[in-house]
């Protein structure tokens, strides 16, 4: 293990410890509500980047996976009263299956067709859930949280910790994929699919793998939302907002490195939370629009690209 890895694992551990201890330090609940939303977007963005960033296949169906996660949890909770951990695991499994199916069905297509297929998929799944009366259908469903488990003293605090675990898990997976043969294969096929195939890269299999992992993580990120909101309705769970925000976060952060979507999600997620409680009007949407345009025009590689460029320049100056 090199120094870089050691630093990473220590960082990840510290992060979890801090999140676990925060409820002791902060009695105020609001930061946990806000943190939950931001952490959720980190998981979604990192997961999205595994397919969208590494492989260059733009998934517009983030909300489909997220919503399926939500409704897997809702279904299990309603049918069996399963605990959160089971809901999460089941959502991840369903997400993996969905990713596998979507991947096989659509990843033979060129990039943009894949994107359009994911839009279509979102609508098909949302419509199906809307027609599924057991989980409330279009009218939505209200749920009562069960008692919180020790050692947590608030349910939201527990959900924040769960989401933080997912963040670490997502980053660990994304980081491993990026530095391993999988990441190199995805990068190769992103650059040139035919050349990659002729260099021995099993492109379809790698894309499906990326889609499975990405899908599992997205669904897992959605699962706790049912208990966070204690309510679920199809139009909120399958909101286009998830797809667009996650796309924006990943691109603003930069998709070449796992840290890109993390930075993007923190930056844009925090901005959105702040705007919600300050300006709080249609300007909120305007800010998202302008940030998207400015970033893709001025910083094509995202913040990560800017940082790299800056450090390269510094290195050149020093040399």
């Amino acid at each position, binding site marked *: 293990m090199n120094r870089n890895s050691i630093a990473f694992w220590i960082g990840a551990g510290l992060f979890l410890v801090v999140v676990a201890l925060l409820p002791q330090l902060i009695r105020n609940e609001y930061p946990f509500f806000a943190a939950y939303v931001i952490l959720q977007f980190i998981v979604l963005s990192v997961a999205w980047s595994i397919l969208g960033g590494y492989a260059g296949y733009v998934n517009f169906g983030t909300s489909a996976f997220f919503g399926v996660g939500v409704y897997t949890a809702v279904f299990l909770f309603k049918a069996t009263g399963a605990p959160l951990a089971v809901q999460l695991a089941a959502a991840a499994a369903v997400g993996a299956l969905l990713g596998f199916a979507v991947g096989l069905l*659509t990843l*033979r297509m060129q990039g943009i*067709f894949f994107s359009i297929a994911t839009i279509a998929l979102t609508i098909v799944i949302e419509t199906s859930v809307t027609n599924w009366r057991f989980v409330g259908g279009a009218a939505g469903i209200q749920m009562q949280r069960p008692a919180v488990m020790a050692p947590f003293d608030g349910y939201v605090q527990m959900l924040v910790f769960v989401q933080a675990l997912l963040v670490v898990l997502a980053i660990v997976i994304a980081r491993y994929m990026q530095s391993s043969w999988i990441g190199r294969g995805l990068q190769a096929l992103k650059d040139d699919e035919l050349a990659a195939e002729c260099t021995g890269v099993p492109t379809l299999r790698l894309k499906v793998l990326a889609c499975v992992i990405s899908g599992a993580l997205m669904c897992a990120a959605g699962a706790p939302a049912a208990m966070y909101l204690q309510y679920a309705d199809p139009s909120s769970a399958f909101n286009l907002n998830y797809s667009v925000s996650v*796309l924006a976060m990943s691109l603003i952060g930069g998709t070449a490195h796992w840290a890109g979507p993390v930075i993007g999600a923190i930056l844009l997620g925090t901005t959105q939370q702040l705007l919600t409680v300050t300006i709080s009007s249609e300007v909120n949407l305007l800010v998202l629009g*302008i940030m998207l345009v400015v970033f893709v025009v001025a910083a094509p590689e995202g913040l990560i690209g800017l940082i790299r460029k800056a450090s390269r320049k510094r290195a050149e100056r020093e040399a």
Partner: protein
Amino acid sequence: MDLLLDAVVIGVLLGCFYAAVSLGLSVSFGLLDVPHVAHPAFLVMASYAVFFLNDRFDIDPLLAGLMITPLLFLFGLVAYRLYYETFEKRGSDAGVRGIAFFFGVAFIIEVLIILQFGVDQRSVTATYIGKAWRIGDMRIPLRLLVAFAVAAGLTILLSLYLSKTFMGRAIRAVAQDQEALRLMGANPVKIKQWAFGIATAVLGIAGALLIIVAPVDPILDRAYIGRTFCVVVMAGLGSMTGTLIAAIILGVVETIVLTLFGASWAPAISFAMLLGVLAIRPQGLFGRRS
């Protein structure tokens, strides 16, 4: 049986309307490969311009649509230039970032509309709105007939333009082989810019139809992202008559499901159809690529 016939007739008319709002995208995305997710936002913007002219000066919506066409053409030229300078010129990865770019543009347009016109839905008045044409037992809304006629005319005009005029043929050529075009001494960028201008200009009439057929609100564009891309992809990229036929198929299937089966399944059926087409025939029903 009567109902089925009815549904088919209404579906065909509705499909023509879908074709009219998709034609521009069929040029910009189908022929030029621009991932123009802001196309529906441009469309809604055009509808609001039509609303403004109709509401303020009592101009017929279709005429208003024609009046804003030159402006939209110029707007399209500028928009493509911007897109070209920032993406195509630099080459790499335009797809992903292009999509994000146009999403950003779409949001900005939404907010500008809200600021100017408020969040309420708007509609226009014209003599052909709210009346029906009776054939025996059947009654067909006049506004749908207008949409049908205009859409058919627009498709024919655009097809003729693309096949008969020099510029039109150049646009088709640029879609297939830019290098060859460059060798012929034509500037592909100029041609694509022109084509994007055309694709945007068409939205004048399409926007008028949108607000004639049903009221519009500032975030209506989101409902049309799926529909328009569905039509263009199902058609096979860049085929104008294909667009018309695919749109009619979508309209008919949607209406039949809506009328005769569980209405709530309508969106799932039409998009499942798109998924099916993509899986079985990725080049679309009338695709140019093999």
